[in-house]
Every structure is written in C-alpha cells, then in structure tokens.
C-alpha cells in the first residue's frame, strides 16, 4: 500500500476534516408569491384536486347558464348514467396509461364482448351467467393478447392496440352480422344481461346500478393501485420500466396483468352497457376509445406513465358528461359541442401542466 502515504487509517489525508463537516442540507425560502402563485402552490401539493375543482367549476357555470333544470337531481343522476360506460372504459384506460401505454382497443373489446354474451345467451340459449363468464374470459383474453404483444413481441402499445382494434372490430361485425339484439329479446331470454340498467330511485333521482358499478370499479381499482404491492409495481413500471426491472419487479408479468385486468374491466363494462343501451348494438361506442383517453387526460393522469390518481379519470369522465349535458341544455348545437370539447381538453390539461410546474 505504498500509495497511502500520509493517509489516516487508509483514508486520503484531505478527508481528515470531514468529521467536523456541517450537516445542513436543504434550505427553504418563502418569497412573496401572489394570488395565482399561492393557488398554484396549494394545488401542486394535491394534484388530484385539480379535476375536482374543474368539475365543480363546470357544474357551477352550467348551473348558471342552463338554469335549474341542470341542477335537478334527475339531471345530475342522468349525467352519471350517461358517463357510466365511458367511465368504465376510462378506468380500464387509466390502468394502461399508468404503465405509460395507451389502449386504442378498449371500446372495441367491450362491444365485442357484449355481442358475444348476447349471441350466446339470446341467440344460442346458453344460460346468462355462463354467457357472461365467457364474455369476461374473452375480455381478459383480449387483454392478454395486447399484453403479450407489448411485452413479448415488444411492440409499442399504441401500435399493438391500433392493430387489435381493427381485429376486434372485424370480429365484432362478423359475429353480429351487424345486427343488434333487441331489448325485448334480451328481456325474454336473458334479463340478467340488462340488470345494470335497473336503478335505485329516490324521488326524481335515478341511480342506476350501472352508475354504481362505475363508482365501485374505480373504488376497487383505486384500492388495488394504492393499497397493494401490485399497485405499487404498476406505478413503478410506468415510471421507469428498466429501473423497476432491476429493482426486482417482474415487469412483464406486471404489464400483462394490467392488460388482462383492463380487458376484464372492459368485459364488465360490456355487461353494464347492455343495461345502459337496452339492446346489444355492434355499432355503438365507435368513438369510445378516444373518449376514454379524453377522460383520462382531463383527469390529470400523465400519458408518460407512473403519475396521477385513477380517481382523476372518474372526474375526467364526469367533467365531459357535465359539459355535454350543460351545453345541450343551453341549446348549443352538436357542432359547437364538439368544438367546446376540443378546447376543454386543451384547457384542462394546460391548467394541470401549470399546476404541476416544478417552479410551483
């Protein structure tokens, strides 16, 4: 050890004074911030509040514009019914987006599964519970296909689901022959398929089981994401997949499980959609993929993965529902509704960005 000249116990000599070194590390300072700054700072700590506030604000604005009809218990519960399906899809979509993916096929999976359940239960006389089980298995399998393409073939999720979207769309047309299954036929053969259309009524308010299912789905997923190890792994994988892998997470297995769960949620949404629509329509929800993404991003979940609360997607879906209902009640043309939703997306995410700015 000839190089250790002048060293103290192996150390290099210049390190001798380290024992006396100062231990202060971080300093904080509170300059003056101004009104906007204060709000920004407040929300920065609780980013999930942002969509809640946007929701409250839109409810308030439309209440003013569209009058008391907007505020009626009937209308408020109606909005919940109307967003219940897109809300469920947004829940599935959030799972995928949290892993830094995107799923263009959620609505196609849902419609395909409703067609499968309907074909089995109504046209082929299979008992409804069995038909539903097949649909659930089918949704999970569709998710498995997406998940395997993403993890094993290593295709980007956007491309994977662009491809499977086309595939599921074609299968749906093929299985349904483009024919809807009528409400009355479902009632006769398998009323169970429509159970989520039933409602609890409190005076004017009609809370369908479908709306409750949506809230319950978000609740369960929130629980899984926040209270279990699996949930932490989902966030870790979305945050930095390579780091998660090295830290000892089976990232591929986690990803596949996420896609399968999302597919399963789509299949549940399929069941709920039969209750909501009344019949089984292979043509419905063509825009559901993009609508679910819209809800998720308005809800403040980052498209880059790993950040955001799944509850944001619930608020995002509700915000869109409130907007559409409010604009319609205010007598705005469909055309300008589309226009307004465009700006809503941009504004909501812009606010979110502003809140999250590091310099908050």
């Amino acid at each position, binding site marked *: *050890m*000839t*190089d*250790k000249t002048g*060293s103290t116990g*192996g*150390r*290099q000599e*210049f*390190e001798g004074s*380290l024992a006396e*070194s100062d*231990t202060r*590390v*971080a300093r904080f300072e509170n300059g003056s911030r101004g009104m906007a700054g204060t709000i920004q700072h407040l929300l920065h700590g609780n980013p999930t509040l942002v969509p809640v506030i946007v929701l409250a604000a839109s409810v308030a604005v439309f209440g003013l514009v569209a009058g008391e009809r907007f505020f009626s218990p009937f209308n408020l519960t109606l909005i919940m019914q109307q967003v219940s399906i897109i809300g469920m899809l947004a829940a599935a979509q959030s799972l995928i987006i949290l892993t830094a993916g995107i799923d263009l096929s959620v609505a196609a999976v849902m419609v395909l599964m409703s067609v499968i359940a309907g074909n089995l239960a109504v046209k082929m006389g299979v008992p409804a519970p069995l038909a539903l089980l097949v649909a659930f298995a089918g949704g999970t399998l569709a998710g498995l296909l997406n998940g395997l393409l993403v993890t094993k073939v290593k295709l980007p999720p956007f491309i994977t689901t662009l491809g499977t979207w086309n595939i599921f769309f074609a299968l749906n047309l093929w299985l349904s022959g483009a024919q809807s299954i009528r409400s009355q036929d479902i009632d006769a053969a398998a009323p169970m398929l429509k159970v989520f259309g039933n409602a609890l009524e409190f005076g004017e308010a009609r809370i369908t089981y479908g709306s409750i299912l949506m809230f319950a789905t978000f609740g369960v997923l929130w629980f899984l994401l926040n*209270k*279990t*190890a*699996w949930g*932490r*792994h989902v*966030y*870790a994988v979305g*945050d*930095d997949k*390579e*780091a*998660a*892998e*090295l*830290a*000892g*997470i*089976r990232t591929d297995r986690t990803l596949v499980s996420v896609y399968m769960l999302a597919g399963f949620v789509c299949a549940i949404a399929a069941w709920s959609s039969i209750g909501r629509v009344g019949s089984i329509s292979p043509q419905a929800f063509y825009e559901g993929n993009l609508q679910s993404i819209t809800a998720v991003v308005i809800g403040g979940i980052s498209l880059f993965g*790993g*950040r955001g609360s799944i509850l944001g997607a619930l608020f995002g879906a509700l915000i869109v529902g409130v907007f559409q209902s409010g604009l319609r009640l205010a007598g705005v043309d469909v055309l300008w509704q589309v226009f307004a939703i465009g700006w809503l997306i941009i504004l909501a995410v812009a606010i979110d960005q502003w809140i999250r700015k590091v310099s908050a």
Partner: protein
Amino acid sequence: MTAPQPILTARGIVKRYGRVTALDRADFDLYPGEILAVIGDNGAGKSSLIKAISGAITPDEGEIRLEGKPVRFTSPIEARDAGIETVYQTLALSPALSITDNMFVGREIRKPGVLGTWFRILDRKAMEDFARDKLSELGLMTIQNINQAVETLSGGQRQGVAVARAAAFGSKVIILDEPTAALGVNESRRVLELICDVRARGIPIVLISHNMPHVFEVADRIHIHRLGRRLCVIDPGEHTMSDAVALMTGAKEPPASAQAA
C-alpha cells in the same frame, strides 16, 4: 482469501451485444466476508459481469455457482431471492415513488391476518418504520420525510437510498457498481464507511470503482478486469496502485502468482 470455499463463483461467462463481446469467458470468485474490488477501463465489462451475476442479463455461456450450487438467474428478482442484492450504476430507483416504496419494491410487507393474506393490503406503517430505522442506522442522511418522492432527493441522497436498500436486504452478497461516481468527498466517505460496516456484519461485498485510493483503502482483494475477462486478482497489501493501473490498462503483464489467485 483464507476461506477455502468461495461463496459466489463464475466460470467462462460470455455475453455478446450484437457484434460487441462484452464478456469473453470471464471468471469471478467472491469469498465469504471479504470486500472484493473490481477495477478496469471503461468498457472493460465490469457492469456486464455483475449484471450477469445478479440476473439482470442472461449470459450466453458460462456457469455461476452460489455456495457451490449452480444457479441460473433469469431476472434480478431471482438473484435477490437467493440473497444477492445489487446497487446498479443507474441506481434502479423509481423517481415518482416514495423512499419507502422504493426500499420495499418487490418485497412489500403485508398487514397481518386476513387483511394481508386475503385483501393483500400493505402494512405501510411497518414498512415506514423499517425504512426509517435502516436509514438512520446507516447514519447516511437526514431525510425529512420518509414518504417523499425519490425524485425530490439530491443525487447523493438517492445513492444513499439505493445503498441502504441493498444493505438492509442483502443476506449473502452485496454488489455495488460505482456507488461513489457522482458523489462529493463527504458523501463518498459515508458510503465507504457503510461498506465497511456491512463487511463487519459478515456479508461479502463486490465493489466496482474507478477510484484507486478508495479501492486500495477498503478492498481485501482486487479483481482486475480487462477486455471482457478477469486478467488477474491481486492483494492490495502486496501491490501498489501503480501496479493495479498498469495491469488494468495493459501496460504490464500480470504476474504468474496473481493469475492463479
């Protein structure tokens, strides 16, 4: 060096990345209770070697034995379950997750009873307490909030979390890939102290470093890696830093004795 049986050995490890051969029939031996330093030029294959040992990459050829039994890790989690903890050069922390979450990732503690077994609910309190204990036990840093996101920590603090995680869970072997590269004098010193503490607990350590004074200070043996394989192993008590540098850069041929070490 005196222990008869190495705890971890590798023989003839080969790893190719496309046309680059990162590991070219590399050997490796780690004995119980020792600090083994691995040194070598940039690109010599040091990180590849420890990745192969820790399951982060699967070697194309070669054999790895842990406590004499052949093992074949296909993911870091398997190596971890076998008691090998690694701090990678890139740290492998999830920036958006909290310190606690990062420390426990992949081995979370669940609540006792039904809540844990059936509902698989995490026992946050237990995990936080453990994490706080470990961090202060190592005296490594003054973390204000055990639940703050890792991305809000300074580089040195992050390195500390990664090292603490390895030290807390490594039961058989701890591997550190350039743990002090980005650290200041002060912070580096603390990591070196931690390494000595861990050895004192009887756990052998593999330390990759470019810092010769550090290496010569703490290492019991020095594995010199060159052009994808182990060139030789030297005893820091018998060789100078100059020797080590000359060997690792190819300025000098290894002595016959060292080759066999």
